[in-house]
């Protein structure tokens, strides 16, 4: 794991804890989904600057509602949590990327953030198999993220 990826991992853990009261650790043995048929929701956010890049995050179905419920202090089975789940996941990613950039590259450079968006499930297979995949356990739920930067592509 390189330093930038470590910073991303730490930032994801911190933001999930501070914003959604979801605590993370290393994914327990056997908790990784068995294959790329994992029923997951994915969101991505691009950032533009030096370097530019993208962070993609995959979580199990239901995790987004759980996050929304925690953020809003409402019942996780409520219609409101279901309705806001996807939006909550996007906002968490927005917070993660904004805070990751400062943690990784300092607070002087100006980066532009894109808009968080849902990503189609068929991309998950590629991310699932990627050597850059980082897995976390979030209160028993697997979380997969991939950080890609222009920097990482340099020889």
């Amino acid at each position, binding site marked *: 794991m390189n330093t930038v990826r470590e910073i991303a991992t730490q930032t994801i853990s911190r*933001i999930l804890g*501070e*914003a959604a009261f979801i605590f993370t650790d290393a994914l327990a043995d056997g908790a990784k989904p068995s294959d790329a048929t994992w029923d997951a929701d994915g969101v991505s956010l691009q950032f533009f600057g030096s370097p530019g890049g993208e962070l993609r995050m995959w979580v199990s179905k239901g995790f987004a509602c759980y996050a*929304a419920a925690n*953020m*809003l*202090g409402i019942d996780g089975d409520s219609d409101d949590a279901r*309705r*806001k789940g996807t*939006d*909550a996941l*996007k*906002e968490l990613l*927005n*917070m993660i*990327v*904004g*805070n990751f*950039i*400062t943690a990784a590259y300092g*607070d*002087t*450079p*100006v*980066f532009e*953030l894109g*808009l968080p968006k849902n990503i189609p499930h068929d991309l998950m297979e590629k991310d699932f198999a990627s050597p850059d995949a980082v897995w976390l356990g979030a209160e028993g739920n697997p979380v997969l993220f991939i950080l890609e930067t222009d920097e990482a592509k340099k020889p």
Partner: protein
Amino acid sequence: MAYSIMIVDDSDTIRAVLARTLGMTKLPIDAIISATNGRDALDKLKDSFVDIVFTDIHMPEMDGITLFETMNAHPEYKDIPVVIVSTEGSTTRIAELRAKGIKGYLRKPFTPENIRDIIVQTLGEWK
């Protein structure tokens, strides 16, 4: 009498989280007015008395900076303080916003104490 606060964000979640967190500040809050973008905020300002505006930057239809600039050019709205709510932490960006006249910057994720400090610094302690 208490504070009347406008929240401008295209995210349902962030509007709800900000409103909930405002409720935890223990400040006297009379009204929270929600708007989904800058244009919606300007429409609602016509009918609402607002002490302070918390706005996102990136929104469809009208972004937070354009909202601020429009308010700043309007005789009835130019004295309403505007606070930017964003995930970005660049001190260069924050200095640019302050140079434009933005009164405060609230970084996400935020706490009730962060919001309380900004309101008290901007509007003064409620007596």
